[in-house]
C-alpha cells in the first residue's frame, strides 16, 4: 500500500477494519417473537444486521460493537444482550 495522491481513499474500505473486537456484550437473536419489522436492522449504528430470511435477522459479529440498541429497540424483545466470553 502506498500513499495516494492527496491521501485519497477507496470507497467503503473501512470494512477492512473489523470492529467486532470492541464488544463486551453480543446480541442473541432469539427468533421466537420476531415480527419481521426490521427495526433492528434499521437502527444498527454499524449497519451490520442482516436479514437471512423472513423473520430471520442476525448481526455480523465481525463489526457489531455490542451497543445494544437492537435489543433495546426490538418491540417484541426478541433480542437479548449476552456477555461475550473470550
Amino acid at each position, binding site marked *: 500500500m502506498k500513499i495516494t495522491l492527496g491521501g485519497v481513499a477507496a470507497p467503503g474500505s473501512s470494512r477492512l477494519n473489523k470492529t467486532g473486537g470492541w464488544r463486551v456484550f453480543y446480541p442473541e437473536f432469539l427468533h421466537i417473537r420476531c415480527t419481521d419489522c426490521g427495526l433492528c436492522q434499521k437502527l444498527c449504528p454499524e449497519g451490520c444486521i442482516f436479514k437471512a430470511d423472513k423473520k430471520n435477522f442476525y448481526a455480523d459479529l465481525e463489526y457489531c460493537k455490542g451497543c445494544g440498541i437492537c435489543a433495546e429497540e426490538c418491540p417484541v424483545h426478541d433480542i437479548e*444482550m449476552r456477555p461475550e466470553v473470550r
Partner: protein
Amino acid sequence: MYQIGVSQPYNNNLFAPGHTACAGCGQSLAARLVLNALGPNVIVANATGCLEVFSSNFPQSSWEVPWIHSLFENTPAVASGIEAALKALGREDEAIVVAQGGDGGFADIGFGALSGAIERGHNILFIVYDNEAYMNTGVQRSGLTPFDASTTTSPAGGCSFGNPTDKKPVAQIVAAHGAPYVAVTSVGYYRDLERKVQKAAGIKGPKFLQIHVPCPLGWGHDTSLTIKIARLAVQTGLYPLFEMENGEITSVVKITPKPRPVEDYLKPQARFRHLFKPGAEEELKKIQAIADENIRRYKLYEG
C-alpha cells in the same frame, strides 16, 4: 498511476462498517440513514469533527459515495464550489451536493460560511448532526449545547449548574435567510428523518436539516439508550421537530399521548446529573419552562 477500488456496498448501506465511532453513536446511525435515503448520486462535503474522523482514517473510508473533507469551518463554502463546478461543467444532474457537519462546525465556527452559502442560494442540502457539544475533542460546550448541560468547558460545580445559555435557534436563523426548506428531525424518529431527507432532496435551492443525535460518551448514557433518549427529547418538548417552508412552520411532530416531564429525559444522562442533587430544584423548573414554551410555541401538544 493510482487505482481506487470500486466495491459493492456492504449490506446495501452507503456508509460502510469498520468506522471507529463509539458503540451506540447516534451520529453514525443518522449518517447512514441519511445516505441510504439519498441514494448513491450524491457528493458530500464534510466538516472536521467526529463523523469525519471516525469515517475517513487513511487508508480507509466508510463512504461509498464521493466525499471530501477540507477543514472545520469551511464546509458550506467547499460545497458551494462543488455545486458551482458541477454547473460550470454541465454536470448539474449528476449529484445532489450535501454539506454536513456537527453543531460546532456548522452553528459555531462555520456559521459564517453556512450563512453565506444559504444566502447565495446554492442548490445544496446542508445537514447539521446536532450532538450538542464538541464531542470530537472532548465534550466542550458549543452554541447548541442545551441549558444546564455539564460539558468540559461549562462544567457543573459549586457555583455552576453547567451551560448558562440555551441552544441557538439555528434552524430558525437559517429559515430567516429565505431558505425554501428547513427541518429539524431526530435519529429517534427514523421515518421522520427519512421523509425529511427525501423531501429536502427534491427541493431546488438551499435546504437545511438539523438532526438530533445522542452521544453516549458526551451525554453519559448507556449505549443502548441512544434512540430512547432521542425520543424523550422530543416527547418532553425539549427538542421540537418541525418543518419550515419559505419561512413558515408547515408541520410539527406532535407529542403523544402527552408530554413527559423533563426529568425523564434528563435523568439517564450524566451531563445533567448535577440537577438531581439537592439545591437544583429551581433549575429543573427552568428546564421544564423551556420545554413548556416549546410546546406552546410549536403547538406540540393540545391537551
